């Protein structure tokens, strides 16, 4: 049962958040179709559970949490898990060309897909610049220190995968060639 007032509220939520939710879903899943399914499912769940949202100011965080839970549910059902030994992550390259080249979107998504979800989610949320560290920690239900640690390692991994001199040269070649 959806009350008339709730219909207006859910439409407002869609209008405000569907872009960022889709972007989060896409970076999380790496697939346009799955990202759309996740986004639609998220709003359907939100519509059904709108009464649970006590604090309207936390709507964005609430929606992201629903989406992440939906994604985790799908991943568990498929029994797929990404793992990369983050202990082997290198340091930020000392020599970086200025200005930095654009990052190849395909390589970026591939690198994200290689990360385990517990590292990928804080990284995406960090770069989306929509949530504080504390909010990310609350969404993932882990201590703040854990989020900081995961984020540091995930950032280092992403840099080592995307900003090594070889990769930069490749990205530059592509830009010049294209």
């Amino acid at each position, binding site marked *: 049962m959806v009350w008339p007032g709730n219909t207006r509220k859910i*439409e407002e939520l869609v209008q405000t958040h569907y872009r960022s939710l*889709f972007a989060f879903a896409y970076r999380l899943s790496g697939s346009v179709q799955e990202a759309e399914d996740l986004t*639609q499912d998220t709003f359907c769940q939100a519509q059904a559970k709108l009464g649970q949202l006590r604090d309207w100011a936390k709507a964005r965080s609430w929606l992201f949490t629903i989406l992440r839970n939906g994604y985790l549910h799908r991943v568990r059902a498929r029994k797929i898990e990404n793992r990369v030994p983050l202990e082997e992550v290198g340091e930020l390259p000392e020599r970086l060309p200025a200005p930095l080249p654009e990052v190849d979107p395909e390589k970026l998504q591939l690198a994200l897909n290689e990360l385990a979800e517990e590292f990928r989610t804080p990284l995406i949320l960090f770069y*989306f610049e929509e949530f504080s560290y504390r909010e990310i920690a609350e969404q993932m239900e882990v201590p703040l220190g854990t989020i900081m640690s995961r984020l*540091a390692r995930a950032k280092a991994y992403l*840099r080592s995968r995307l900003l090594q001199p070889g990769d930069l040269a490749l990205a530059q070649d592509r830009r010049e060639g294209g």
Partner: protein
Amino acid sequence: MDCMNARLLLLFNRPGCAEIASEDMDSLQDHLEHCAECRSVAHKEKMVDGVLGSALRKVPLPGGLQERIQQRLVLERRPRPWIWLATAASLLLMVGLTVSWYLQPSPTIDAGSITNLRPGSSPESVTAWFRERGLTLAIPPEFDFHYLDSWEVVSLQGQRVPKLLFINQGVVAHVYVISTDQFQYDEELHQRLLNNSLNAVILHHPDNADFFFLVINSGGTLDSFQRRGV
């Protein structure tokens, strides 16, 4: 602030970061003004975060996404006839069952079921009654079946056993007919029963070692149930 702490803060520093205290931010700024190496790292951090963040946020939206979300929400809001039908059918079934339970006539007494209440039945007919229920009855030879009041199948420590109830002149004896397949004969139990005030005894079957009898009587002796000539 030393370089190590400055590098750590640089890793998490970003515009509007509420988790780093303002004093720490001031100390970091002081350090960066005096340390060229950390200033270079800070610059690199900012550049790299800028490039990666911009790439990560660049996600093209599929056309018509908002409309498809709205359509799906409208569909979800629609009452689904099969759900209503299923709910209505369940309710009807529950109401029907409840009404039929209340309206069903009280059962009549089955004459066959009261045969075991009829006193003075013969050992043969009682044995046959238990046989129909999958139990073998050994007749306790000391008891006169004229005093047999009723019989039934009871559960004794989880085992189905025949029980005979003898009554004579106000004295009652419950006789449990126990197979040695079900329970071992326990001499110590026999002694313990004799020594306490339960008025319970274990009786052997003189001709059939496969059975024994646990007899609990309401007082007095078992002589009043004695078969003539036993």
